[in-house]
């Protein structure tokens, strides 16, 4: 794998320097720490939303900081959790008097550090709540759903909570909607190639040509099994099955679909994937309200994709329709 970098150890900070230079009107940082990223858009009395996690997943996590989505993000090293202190600094900056909600993925290091930041914020009289996203169906069985990893579907949690906060809903209400979104979103992923961490310079697992792994996580966590590569339609059939069974879905339900590329898979292939998704949903009588196709949560240079479904009701739809604007993406009112 050939990379565009200067020194591997500067990978994250130089990426951030580029981002601040490219979007000076939208994002900045606090406490002289480039890894404490906050939105330039502020609204008095609005609930503050923060996320955080390791680098290597853009646009996750910092790409969702902007108007109508999140207010701040702590940036860790590649696949490493940011520190509680960084989270506390972001929390203090984005608190507009209505409290702060942390939304992040279900990973041990992140949970511990966000928990710690929450305790510190409590000592400074900032009310903090937390919603932990874990929607990767194949990372744990349904009876152990609390062990499931958070992957691309967290986008929907950001989207709904962000819109609710922007609509000046209370901390209780924003938290409730974030939880409701978590309960209604499911993701299944698959990988076609491993990824390489810049400072390591070699892949942390093997995925030989002609093989694929369904259920692999965004740091290369093991999937269900290594198997022979199949056609796109067969892969989608295999992946959609556990998603549709988990909630479960029935004819007449309405959804939003997110087809996410892991970093090295061309968008052409993501549309080949969505083509099949739309056929299956149509056959089952499930109505598609809107679709996101692109890169929403990547894993460096991993090839592969994930499919997320958000089951909608009128309330979730209202918030999904609302606009947002970040350095990475923009949505008009739907």
């Amino acid at each position, binding site marked *: 794998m050939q990379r565009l970098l200067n020194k591997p150890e500067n990978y994250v900070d130089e990426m951030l320097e580029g981002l601040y230079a490219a979007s000076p009107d939208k994002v900045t940082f606090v406490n002289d720490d480039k890894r404490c990223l906050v939105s330039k858009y502020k609204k008095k009395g609005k609930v503050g939303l923060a996320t955080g996690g390791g680098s290597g997943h853009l646009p996750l996590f910092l790409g969702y900081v902007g108007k109508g989505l999140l207010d701040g993000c702590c940036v860790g090293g590649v696949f490493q959790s940011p520190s509680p202190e960084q989270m506390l600094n972001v929390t203090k900056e984005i608190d507009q008097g209505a409290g702060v909600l942390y939304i992040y993925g279900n990973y041990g290091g992140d949970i*511990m550090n966000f928990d*710690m930041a929450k305790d510190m914020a409590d000592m400074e009289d900032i009310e903090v709540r937390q919603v932990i996203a874990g929607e990767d169906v194949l990372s744990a069985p349904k009876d152990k759903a609390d062990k499931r990893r958070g992957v691309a579907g967290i986008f929907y949690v950001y989207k709904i909570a962000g819109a609710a906060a922007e609509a000046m809903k209370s901390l209780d209400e924003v938290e409730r909607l974030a939880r409701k979104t978590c309960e209604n979103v499911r993701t299944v992923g698959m990988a076609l190639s491993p990824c390489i961490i810049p400072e390591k310079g070699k892949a942390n697992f093997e995925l030989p040509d002609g093989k694929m792994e369904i259920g692999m996580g965004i740091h290369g966590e093991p999937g269900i099994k290594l198997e022979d590569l199949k056609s796109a339609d067969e892969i989608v059939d295999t992946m959609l099955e556990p998603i549709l069974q988990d909630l479960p879905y029935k004819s007449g339900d309405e959804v939003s679909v997110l087809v996410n590329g892991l970093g090295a898979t061309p968008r052409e292939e993501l549309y080949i994937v969505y083509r099949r998704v739309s056929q299956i949903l149509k056959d089952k009588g499930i109505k598609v309200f809107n679709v996101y196709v692109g890169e929403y949560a990547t894993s460096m240079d991993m090839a592969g994709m994930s499919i997320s479904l958000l089951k909608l009701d009128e309330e979730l739809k209202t918030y999904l329709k609302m606009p947002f604007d970040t350095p990475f993406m923009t949505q008009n009112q739907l």
Partner: protein
Amino acid sequence: MAFTRENFLAFLESASALMNENKQYLIDLDSALGDGDLGLTMTSGFTEAVAFAKGSSETDLGKLAAQTGMAMSKKVPSTMGTLVASGFMGAGKAVKGKSELSDEETASFFTAFTDGVCNRGKAAVGDRTIVDALKPGSDAFAAAVKEGKSLHDAASIACDAAQKGSESTKDLIGKFGRAVYYGDKVLGVVDQGSVVGALIYKAMAQTL
């Protein structure tokens, strides 16, 4: 006898010295079954804790302990750094507003330290973590104080209990962290986190 700011500082200094003495041992243990940085994070974390607490003019022992925890967490945001820092924060919360602690309050302080670590990491005794040393240590300490033993004697009993708890991890399979990936390959080797826990109680026995 009361537990004062001086006792707390002496305890931190002793813990810091013990981490330094055992730095290579912790690195070796952690390189075999973790990511190898435990010796570095613990020496660095306790060095920072000593520097912070000595430099602070805070007379409220609760606040001092909690702030020491925060200073440690800022210095070493690794898993074990965050866990030990959480212990200090929990202990501090339990004795907030007090400038010296009675024997019972000293027992509460160390019990709250264990609880702070357990609440943060969600581990219990038997999960092959630092808790396997901390919990027996604080339980034995509280029981000895309740029986009317001096802090000095209670600390020595607690130190033995923590050491024994750490030894017991040799027979345990990991439920947290990288140890999970190693399955039963960890058997026969002591859990590196529990070694840190035992050293914390050794520091206490040396200073109370």
